């Protein structure tokens, strides 16, 4: 098995706010991430696909195809957006790194037909990142 990782970056804004919580609870639980005007990050996304290289091409999958999937499914949706209001998949959810990484997994997993999606790693900052794995991994 070979694991191939492609990295892309996107920049986006968000805020954490749960309307079921009181304003005090929102501030206590989410801290400065609750600022109603939002704030932003340079996210780094690493997508790892596992598979056996095709003997004819020597490739797990065509990197150009993976690049196009990442552009279409992730960057066109999330780059330079306000995640809370401009990304329908995140509507009504708290766009934490966990939530965004899980959403990215759900968007990518059905699009990858050569090899299989092994890991989605999303950095919000160099000191905070989340890994998503499929069931049984």
């Amino acid at each position, binding site marked *: 098995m070979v694991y191939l990782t492609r990295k892309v970056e996107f920049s986006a804004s968000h805020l954490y706010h*749960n309307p079921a919580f009181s304003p005090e609870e929102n501030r206590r639980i989410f801290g400065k991430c609750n600022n109603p005007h939002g704030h932003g990050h340079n996210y780094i996304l690493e997508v790892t696909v596992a598979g056996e290289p095709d003997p004819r091409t020597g490739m797990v999958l065509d990197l150009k195809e993976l690049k196009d999937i990442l552009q279409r499914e992730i960057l066109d949706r999330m780059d330079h957006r306000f995640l809370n209001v401009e990304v329908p998949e995140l509507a009504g959810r*708290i766009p*934490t790194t966990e939530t965004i990484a*899980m959403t990215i997994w759900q968007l990518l997993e059905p699009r990858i037909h050569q090899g299989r999606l092994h890991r989605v790693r999303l950095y919000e900052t160099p000191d905070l990142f*989340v*890994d*998503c794995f*499929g*069931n049984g991994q």
Partner: protein
Amino acid sequence: MKVVLHRRYHFSASHRLHQLGWTDEENFRVYGKCANPHGHGHNYILDVALTGPVDPATGMVTNLADLDAFVERQALAEFDHVYLNEQVPAFRSLVPTTENMCRVLFERLRAYPHARLETIGIQETAANSFEYTGGTQENE
């Protein structure tokens, strides 16, 4: 889907690799310049990886403010800007290699109540990093 949250912390500390029961020659042969009796230091990066269900009300595996306070109390307060051999009791009788630091910090941080500790990683330098997942080879 399994979700693993990684949080990185920075601390700077000095140490010396030296076994009390060995001669100076043996220590220098095994540990090289790391056995310098005056010690030396590193900027360490601690990677704490936790797993658990994502709470739909918060979108979180755990609240980072809780985790940061716990790691500060259980690890950084004692490990940052100290001479590990002398000032951290665990290393008075245990050589403070990065491997042993991973094990000591795993034992200290596994008590975190809000998520399950998956891995402790420590980067000693940009070229050397270590991970510990708990347990021993036999039961992993």
